[in-house]
């Protein structure tokens, strides 16, 4: 410390001469590289490409130079204001599954707004009714692709997309091609339910308000989670029946009852990819028949054939894909993704969307998609609903008007293998399921 205060020798020290020489050599080398780079750019310009800078009037020759830009400080983009044309694209990142993600897109602006990093085998997000948070069931391995597996329900701030906390779950989360029934919210946003498959079947319950795991219970023979009331849900069973489960106020199951077969899982299975209409779940079968499951007159959950179909399968067109159905509640319309093909083609991408009135069952419209799609979804707003279409492996979101099927825009370079499309919920209401 004391030495630093000593006056320095006025003679130029030898090390400074050496340093100056090095600087001179480096500067010379940089000048050479600079000239080479310029010549490269000149070639490009000769090829017909004119840069924006070159084509604009010179700020020097044009007279007064504009005031310089003020200096900036790096920051984080402000919190995202929710609106009904925000949409989450869930990407399982199939060629690199430990790195799943959900991408938030503004369909009005045609821009990406943010991302949630979803871990291994990312499925889809959970939105509580108040819209303040987002929950995501996630799987991680201690050493990336190996080591101890940990499953968590990660809690995100819905507007800042920051991690606010996590609830550790049994490491048994079902991992499949993404399905909305893999996890659901219940109890007016208090409970998150996660379907497990090891291949023993069970359900985990987390209390997101208390921030803790509640319980896990067996559901042998039955899969997925479809809530119909604040604390009641059903699961689809391999025999074509369903399992009704009621939760107590603490999230623990108080009743489990098997319901008799209501569809033929062997001859005409239901796609396990239904939509919630506001009071019931609507399913479509491999042969285009519509089924519905909801609370019956006695308050118990019942499934039945709805008595109408999307199209006569003999005409060659069938529903299919990863997310084949969408409902727009304000207009009471059902949108179905259709492809041409017979048995064994039920996951083929659709090229057409058919629109039905949910009350009259009449076909209102039939739209040709510009590109094949494996998933469709519709925004929830009444004023200007949008139809989203995306195909797994084609990183492009197409945005159509859900009123007349006209293409509004195409947003590219979005995701790797996008599966489920989740428009931002507008208002889900108390105890509402989705």
């Amino acid at each position, binding site marked *: 410390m004391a030495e630093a205060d000593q006056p320095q020798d006025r003679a130029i020290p030898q090390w400074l001469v050496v340093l100056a020489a090095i*600087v001179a050599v480096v*500067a010379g080398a*940089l000048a050479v590289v*600079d000239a080479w*780079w310029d010549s490269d*750019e000149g070639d*490009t310009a000769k090829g017909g*490409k004119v*840069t924006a*800078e070159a084509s604009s009037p010179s700020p020097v020759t044009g007279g007064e130079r504009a005031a310089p830009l003020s200096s900036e400080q790096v920051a984080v983009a402000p919190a995202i204001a929710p609106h009904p044309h925000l949409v989450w694209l869930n990407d399982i990142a*199939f*060629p*690199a*599954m*430990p790195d799943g993600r959900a991408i938030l897109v503004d369909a009005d602006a045609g821009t990406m707004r943010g991302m949630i990093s979803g871990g*291994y*085998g990312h499925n889809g997000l959970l939105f509580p009714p108040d819209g303040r948070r987002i929950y995501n069931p996630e*799987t991680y*391995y201690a050493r*990336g*692709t*190996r*080591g101890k*597996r940990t499953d968590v329900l990660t809690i995100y701030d819905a507007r800042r997309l920051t991690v606010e906390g996590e609830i550790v779950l049994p490491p048994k989360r*079902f*991992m*499949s*091609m993404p*399905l909305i029934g893999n996890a659901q919210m219940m109890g007016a946003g208090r409970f998150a339910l996660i379907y497990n*498959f*090891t*291949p023993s079947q069970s359900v985990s319950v987390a209390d997101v308000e208390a921030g803790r795991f509640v319980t896990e219970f067996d559901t042998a023979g*039955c*899969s*997925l989670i479809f809530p119909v009331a604040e604390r009641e849900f059903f*699961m*689809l*069973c*391999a025999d074509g029946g369903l399992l009704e489960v009621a939760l107590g106020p603490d999230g623990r199951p108080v009743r489990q009852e098997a319901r008799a077969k209501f569809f033929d*899982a062997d001859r005409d*299975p*239901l*796609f*396990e990819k239904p939509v919630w209409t506001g009071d019931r779940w609507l399913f479509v079968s491999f042969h285009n028949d519509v089924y519905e499951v909801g609370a019956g007159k006695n308050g118990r959950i019942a499934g039945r054939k709805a008595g109408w179909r999307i199209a006569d399968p003999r005409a060659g067109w069938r529903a299919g894909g990863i997310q084949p159905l969408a409902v727009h509640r304000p207009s009471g319309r059902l949108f179905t993704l259709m492809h041409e093909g017979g*048995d*064994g*083609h*039920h*996951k*083929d*991408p659709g090229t057409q969307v058919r629109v039905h009135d949910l009350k009259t069952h009449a076909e209102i419209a039939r739209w040709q998609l510009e590109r*094949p799609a494996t998933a469709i979804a519709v925004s929830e707003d009444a004023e200007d609903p949008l139809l989203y279409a995306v*195909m*797994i*492996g*084609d*990183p492009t979101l197409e945005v159509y008007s859900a009123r007349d099927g006209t293409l509004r825009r195409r947003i*590219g*370079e979005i995701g790797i293998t996008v599966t489920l499309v989740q428009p931002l919920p507008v208002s889900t209401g108390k105890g509402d399921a989705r």
Partner: protein
Amino acid sequence: MSGKWLDAWMERRARRLYRGTSRRHALARIAGLLVGAGMLPLLPVSRGAAAHGEAGDKGEAAATRDPNSCAYWRYCAIDGFLCSCCGGSASQCPPGTEPSPVTWIGTCLNPEDGRHYVISYNDCCGKTSCGRCMCNRNEGDKPVYVPYQSNDINWCLGTKVGEVYHCSTAVVIGTAE
């Protein structure tokens, strides 16, 4: 003082790099489209033209006999990356991966002898996705609530190495007759 010209030089570099980026960007986009186009035939959208993978274009009949082709007869209900393109074979996992002890079962017609065979689609596990020869065919595939007939499930269950999926095999179990 030298800091100033260095800054200026860096700034010029940065500007040019930025412009260069947009050129490379265009190339990257085209490359992306090509990758996308490479994937499309392997998705069910155009299964008729699915005789690709490492097999090249050998025609439909030859493709049904080629384990590197999505059209190979055993793959009639497969969903994933073909282990035969990943260092394994139709019935072998690539080195260092572990076969899943549980899996889904399909039935496929062998055009060579006209017999139907029961095929076990064991996944190979413990390394990240192979990423080659993506193939999805769904003959007899059922929704996940009929698990043992569903190819949408990650079957890397009950392994020592964990559930990270690498690729899929198609092992002949026996005739279905």
